[in-house]
């Protein structure tokens, strides 16, 4: 029967550049742990959500392939290097092409992926390549979070209309971000009382976060 279960692919794109070292990267690791714990308490999320992590510093790579939550292993994260955001989007596009099942006449396709992007700086590589790459894949929602004063919200606006800004790159704010991400995944995994083709409604962002208009 499990063949008929649609998966909700969730991609976390995490900035692991040098500026994230120290407290922020530790908070991100804690955030992923908390995210997993939270989602594992929700039967619908556990049944439908599949998680992948893509990190980027001087280059981008997928550190955790799309995996069901019960089998997901937290990736080793270290901070250092530049901010290859364009590269991260290219990796994302490749992963979606390879991992997300499309609907065909003989196959039940997955739900549109949810993408959460967290960055604290501006891209140091060619963003255009990345933008071009993700144009060709279908995603449900991309939510970009600009963390701290140095993040460039204008750049993020080129990727998606959903841009959040957290003013400080503190452990508390990062924890709140991941709590919100888990809330969003839970909402998406059940609220698919959504009309066909429409992006799902996400819960309001955590306190202290600003939606960039």
């Amino acid at each position, binding site marked *: 029967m499990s063949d008929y279960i649609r998966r909700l692919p969730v991609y976390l794109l995490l900035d692991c550049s040098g500026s994230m070292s120290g407290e922020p990267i530790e908070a991100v690791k804690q955030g992923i742990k908390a995210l997993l714990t939270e989602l594992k308490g929700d039967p619908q999320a556990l049944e439908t959500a599949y998680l992948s992590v893509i990190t980027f510093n001087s280059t981008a790579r997928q550190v955790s392939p799309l995996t069901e939550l019960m089998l997901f292993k937290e990736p080793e994260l270290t901070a250092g290097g530049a901010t290859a955001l364009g590269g991260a989007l290219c990796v994302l596009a490749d992963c979606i092409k390879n991992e997300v099942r499309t609907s065909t006449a003989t*196959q039940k396709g997955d739900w549109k992926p949810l993408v959460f992007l967290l960055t604290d700086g501006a891209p140091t590589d060619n963003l255009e390549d990345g933008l071009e790459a993700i144009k060709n894949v279908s995603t449900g929602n991309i939510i970009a979070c600009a963390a701290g004063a140095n993040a460039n919200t204008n750049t993020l606006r080129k990727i998606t209309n959903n841009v959040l800004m957290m003013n400080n790159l503190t452990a508390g704010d990062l924890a709140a971000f991941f709590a919100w991400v888990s809330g969003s995944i839970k909402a998406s995994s059940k609220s698919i009382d959504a009309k066909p083709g429409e992006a799902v409604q996400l819960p309001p962002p955590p306190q202290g976060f600003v939606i960039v208009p």
Partner: protein
Amino acid sequence: MNSGQIMTAQLENGGTIDFVLDANAPRGGMKHTFFTPDKKYAVQFFNNPQDGQNPNIQDRIRTIVGIYNPTLSEQDGGALGNTEKTAEYFRSRFCWPVAIVQSPEFGIVCPTYPQRFFFGDNASTHGLNLKGKDKKSNWFTGRMRKYISSGELGDFRTMLSAAICLSRSIRRMHQAGLAHSDLSCNNVLIDPQTGSTVVIDIDSLVVPGKYPPEVCGTRGYIAPEVLTTMELDPRDPRRCLPCVSTDLHALPVLIYEYLFLRHPLAGPKIYSPDSAEEDDFLAMGPKATFIEDPNDTSNRPQDLKITIQSLSKGLEKLFLRAFVDGLHNPSERPTAMEWERELLKAWDRLRRCENPHCEKKWFILRDEREPVCPYCKTRVTDKIITLTLKSAMRGKQGVYRDCGEVVVYDQMPLYDWHVYSNVHNDEKAGNDMRAYICKHNGMWLLVNHGIEGMTSPTGRLVPKGQAVELKDGAVFRMTDRENGLLCEVSAI
């Protein structure tokens, strides 16, 4: 918000209630929830404060708390004709709002649900930390069941009991004209160990004559006609809104899930090659097809072994009415009362499987001539003893009509509804055991435990503590008192 700070809410009934602020308060689609310091009550406010100020919503909720409240006796301001006994019965089966908060803003107070609907220690064998989490039914009926400790899972009998409990609660709501409007695995919590359910999120009920709530339901439980017309303007006459007949789709979906551990519409059929969203919309909406539809097998899984034919014939018929005749034709759907009645009849045909390793432990004996457990295929070797209960026809001396059949098992308890024709197995009946079945030295006995006036097949009084032997063809009175039932035994 200062998590941990205690606030005092002013209630419309003049009282107050304290609750603890929490920045991570659980948040549903409409409301968020705080708890009283002793955690006995939940204090809920609307996510969108405008909803709380909406006079239509306030008006509807006031009637739900008051004159439509089945958990409060009529004397205490609850539903008409409700006694304290029935109110008590439904208090543990509904999480019904009990008071309205006036300030700091409009909100409602609900009792927290009984402890058995929260997971305790060691609920998962796979390291899931479930302690304190709600027992949403899809933990037990979905794929995640494999991660739950076997001690939590109950067996076929307790799941049937849960289905009875739910159908009774919904029947009670519908009897008052109320519709839940969002019955789902999230809003009906289930305890498979005790075979009980509790219906929560009562504030978005559809109340006769009141402005309807703005919910459309949850994926998998929304009635196909509601999903199909969801895009239309709410004032469009073609738009279908949640009502009693849409509950009558969600109810059998839940019952089916409890009994089969799968969804009745989730099959292999591809409805659209274009997108998952379109495919799902068609599968749950305009093109929905029952996986066990006898005429259209396009959505039938290949490995379907246990089917509605593994249940009683009565239940099989009801499922066909709900998911074939009534799937796209709401007026054909069986009522909650029919579900309750048919599930109870099935309950009386339960039989313990003789295979000690049978995973389901119990099954419904569909046919005495083919007595095989449908789950493990173990054949019944023991005698099958059926009691046919008959009641005297009023004004016709010596004429009786059948009013029930019970397939007995060792240590089976019998209650008032097995003794008197005017007592039914429902919220009004008492649950004191009146007699029990016992297999003793190869003899099957019906032991009187508290019935006045039980008589043996030869007409002698059977006092408490003594028994009637259940031999094929034996006929005796459960009691010679008024409304006493006659019992006819068949043993094959």
